[in-house]
C-alpha cells in the first residue's frame, strides 16, 4: 500500500517528501512504477521507501501506530502554547534604516512601567512554562529603564515560569552599565549586521550621520569585554545582491559562526522604497545560492559557520524535528506561538502584525493589556483568522506542495501585499521554494562532506 506523501518534479526526476520530513528522489520511470505498485518488493529502492514510510504492508492501523510519534515530533510546536513575548518598548530609533518596518512615521512612544507590569501579569495565563521575553523597538535601549524594570521584575511576578530574556539592538547605546546588567541577568543580545561597513552604513544610516557600523562594533566590543557573545542577522537589499562573498566574510571577520540571510519583506519603509532597494525572488535566490556556496567553502576550509535558514529547514529534512520558528510552521506562530506588545499596551498577533499597526492599520490587534487578557486574545476572531489562514493543510497550492512538510505562510505578509490574509504572497512562496531547491540540489547530489556539514547544521539549533 502507498503511504501518504507529497511529490513534485525536480530537475530530471521526481522528489517525494513525507510529513515526517523524510524524502526520496526517483527517476520518472521508477516513480511511475512505484505509484502503480509495480516496483518489486525485494529491491533496495522499495525497501528504503518502506523504511521511510512511503509505503507499507500490513494493516493501516499498524502503519498509523508506527508513524504517529514521528508525526508528533515533526509538529511538536502544536503541543506548545504562546511562548514568545515581544515587548516593543519604544518605536523611537537612532538609526534610519532604509528598509525600516517598525516605524511608520507615527507618534513616538515609550512603554511605561504601568504598561510593562500589566503586560507581564497577563503573561501568567499562557500555559507555556518556559517563555522568552524579547525586547524590540525601535531601538529598545532608547528605553533601557523599562528593559531593566522588566528583567528585574518579571521573574518575581511570574514565579512559575522559566523566563529567558533576549534583546534585539543596534548596539550603539551599549555602555559598561548596560553590558554588566545583561551579563548579570543573562540577557542574550542579538544585533543586525548587513555586510561590510559600506553596505551596513548604506542600509542602516545613523540619524546623527555617524557610522552605525562603527557604533555597532564599539557596542559589540564592550559586550565582549563582559563575556557576552552577540548573535547577528542580515537583511538583504538590492545593494547586497552583488556582494554575497563580502557579506559572508564580514561575518567571519567579526567572529560570527552563524549568519541568517533574510530576504527583504515588502513592509513599511521597504515597501515605499521598493524601486530603489527591492528585487525579484530570482535575484535573491541567485544571491542566496552564491552566499551558501561561500559559507560551505568557509566551513570546508575549517571555520564553522551556519546559515540559519538552511539549519531550520535541514532540521526538518534530516532529523524530522520541528523547530518552533514562527514563520515556518502550520499554523504559523501568530498569537498561538508569539504575541507582540507595544508601548501603549496594545497586543498584536506577532512582530509583523505590530509593524502593520505602526503603519496605521490595526488589522492584527488582539487586544490591550489593560482591557482584556490572554484568553480573550487567543479566542479573538483575529487570532482564529490568522491560524486558519496559515494552516497549510487547508490551503490550495500548499496542501499538496512537495515542500509542505517544511514550509509555512505568513498571513500578515499576504495581507500587506495582496490585501487578503489567505492570498499567498507569490514572492515569499518563490523564495522559500527556491531556498529548498538549493538545499535539495546539495542533498540529491549527495557529496559526503556536504551532507556531513548539513547534518551538523541541522543539529545546531
Amino acid at each position, binding site marked *: 500500500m502507498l503511504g501518504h506523501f507529497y511529490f513534485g518534479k525536480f530537475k530530471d526526476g521526481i522528489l517525494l517528501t513525507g510529513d515526517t520530513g523524510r524524502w526520496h528522489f526517483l527517476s520518472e520511470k521508477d516513480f511511475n512504477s512505484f505509484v502503480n505498485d509495480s516496483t518489486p518488493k525485494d529491491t533496495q529502492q522499495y525497501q528504503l521507501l518502506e523504511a521511510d514510510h512511503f509505503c507499507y504492508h500490513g*494493516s493501516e492501523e499498524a502503519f498509523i501506530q508506527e508513524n504517529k510519534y514521528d508525526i508528533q515530533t515533526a509538529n511538536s510546536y502544536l503541543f506548545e502554547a504562546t511562548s514568545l513575548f515581544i515587548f516593543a518598548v519604544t518605536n523611537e530609533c537612532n538609526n534610519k534604516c532604509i528598509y525600516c518596518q517598525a516605524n511608520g512615521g507615527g507618534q513616538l512612544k515609550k512603554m511605561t512601567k504601568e504598561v510593562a507590569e500589566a503586560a507581564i501579569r497577563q503573561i501568567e495565563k499562557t500555559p507555556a512554562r518556559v517563555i522568552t521575553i524579547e525586547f524590540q523597538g525601535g531601538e529598545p535601549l532608547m528605553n533601557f529603564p523599562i528593559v531593566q524594570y522588566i528583567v528585574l521584575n518579571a521573574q518575581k511576578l511570574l514565579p512559575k515560569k522559566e523566563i529567558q530574556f533576549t534583546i534585539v539592538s543596534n548596539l550603539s547605546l551599549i555602555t559598561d552599565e548596560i553590558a554588566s546588567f545583561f551579563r548579570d541577568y543573562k540577557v542574550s543580545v542579538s544585533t543586525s549586521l548587513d555586510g561590510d561597513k559600506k553596505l551596513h552604513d548604506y542600509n542602516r544610516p545613523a540619524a546623527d550621520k555617524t557610522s552605525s557600523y562603527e557604533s555597532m562594533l564599539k557596542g559589540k566590543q564592550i559586550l565582549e569585554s563582559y563575556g557576552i557573545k552577540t548573535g547577528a542577522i542580515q537583511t538583504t537589499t538590492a545593494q547586497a545582491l552583488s556582494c554575497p562573498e563580502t557579506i559572508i566574510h564580514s561575518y567571519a571577520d567579526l567572529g560570527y559562526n552563524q549568519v541568517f540571510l533574510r530576504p527583504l519583506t515588502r513592509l513599511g519603509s521597504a515597501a515605499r522604497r521598493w524601486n530603489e532597494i527591492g528585487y525579484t525572488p530570482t535575484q535573491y535566490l541567485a544571491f542566496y545560492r552564491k552566499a551558501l556556496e561561500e559559507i560551505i567553502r568557509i566551513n570546508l576550509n575549517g571555520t564553522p559557520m551556519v546559515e540559519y535558514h538552511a539549519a531550520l529547514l535541514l532540521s526538518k529534512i534530516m532529523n524530522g524535528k520541528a523547530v518552533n520558528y514562527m514563520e515556518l510552521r502550520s499554523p504559523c506562530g501568530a498569537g498561538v506561538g508569539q504575541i507582540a506588545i507595544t508601548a501603549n499596551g496594545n497586543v498584536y498577533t506577532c512582530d509583523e502584525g505590530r509593524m502593520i499597526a505602526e503603519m496605521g492599520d490595526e488589522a492584527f490587534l488582539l487586544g490591550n493589556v489593560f482591557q482584556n487578557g490572554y484568553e480573550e486574545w487567543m479566542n479573538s476572531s483575529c487570532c482564529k483568522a490568522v491560524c486558519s489562514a496559515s494552516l497549510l493543510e487547508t490551503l490550495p497550492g500548499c496542501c499538496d506542495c512537495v515542500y509542505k512538510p517544511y514550509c509555512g505562510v505568513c498571513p500578515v505578509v499576504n495581507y500587506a501585499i495582496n490585501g487578503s490574509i489567505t492570498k499567498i504572497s507569490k514572492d515569499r512562496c518563490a523564495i522559500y521554494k527556491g531556498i529548498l531547491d538549493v538545499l535539495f540540489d546539495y542533498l540529491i547530489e549527495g557529496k559526503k562532506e556536504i551532507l556531513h556539514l548539513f547534518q551538523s547544521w541541522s543539529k545546531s539549533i
Partner: protein
Amino acid sequence: MPGLIIDRDDVCLYVTEKCNSNCIMCPMSLDCRKRGSEMSTEEWEHFEEMIPDNVSHFTITGGEPFLHYPKLFPILKKINQLYPDAEVLILTNGRALAIPAIMESLSALITQRYCFAIPIHGSKETIHDDITSSPGSFRQSIIALKHLSETSARTEVRIVGHLLNIEDINDTYYMICGLKARIDVINLIAMEMTGCAARNRKKLWVNYDILCDKAENGIRQAILHGIDTGLYNFPLCQVPEHLWPMIKHSITASKIMYPKKCEECKKKDACGGMFYSTCLLNLCTIKPFRG
C-alpha cells in the same frame, strides 16, 4: 523479585514488594507484599555502576517506592546528576507525598523530566478506599496530586477499571478533570490478572469492551479539558474504532500473549496483545478482524 531491570536504554528500579495499600486488584499476591523483599543493598548503593551509561528512561516502581524514601531520595539525586537528560517515571500511590516533610524534600529533586503516575480508583473516598482497603488513601492520593501539580513534574492519573468501579468510571474522569490541580494525563488501565486480581477475579472481571464503553464519556471529558488520555493494556478488538488513537502498546514484550483466535485477525500487527495471565485465564472474548 525486586531489583534493577535493564532493557537497553530503559532501566526499571523495582524498589520493593511492600505496599501501604492493599488493593483488591493488585497484580501481586498478598504473600508477596507481606514478604516485602526489596532491592539489594548493593543495588541501593551502587545502582549507577550496574546500569548502562546511555540510560534515557527510568521507571521507579514497587510495591510502593516511597515506603523507602530515605533510600530513594539519594537515588533520585544521583539520577539527576548522572543522567540529566533522562526521563523519570515514578509509579506510586502518592500517599506518602501527603506528608509535608516528605513532599518538601522531594520537591527539591523534581525537574520537568519527572512524571508521577498515581492510581485513583473512584470519584469519591468510599469507593476508592474500599478498593485499596486503606481508609484515608483517597484523600492522601488527591493531596499528592495537588502538591505535585505545584512542581514542574508531569502528573498522570491511572484508573484501573473493573467491576467494582465500572459504574463510577465516568464520574471518576469528571472528578479528576474538575480537580484544582494540573493533571497532564489520565490513562485507563485494563487489569493484569495475576496475584490478588486473579484470586478475586469473580468479584472483579468485566470484559474489556464493556469497560471501554462505560468509560467513553469520561475519556471525552478529559480530552475537552486538554488532558492527554490513553488506554493501557487493551487489545484492539476490545476498543471501538474511534478510540484507537488512545491505545498505547503498554504490555512488556515478555508478558504479551495472543489467544489462538488472534491468528485469524487481519489487524494483529497493530494490536498490543494481552497479558499472558489474562489470556491463560481465558476471561476475555476476542473478536478477530477477518475483513
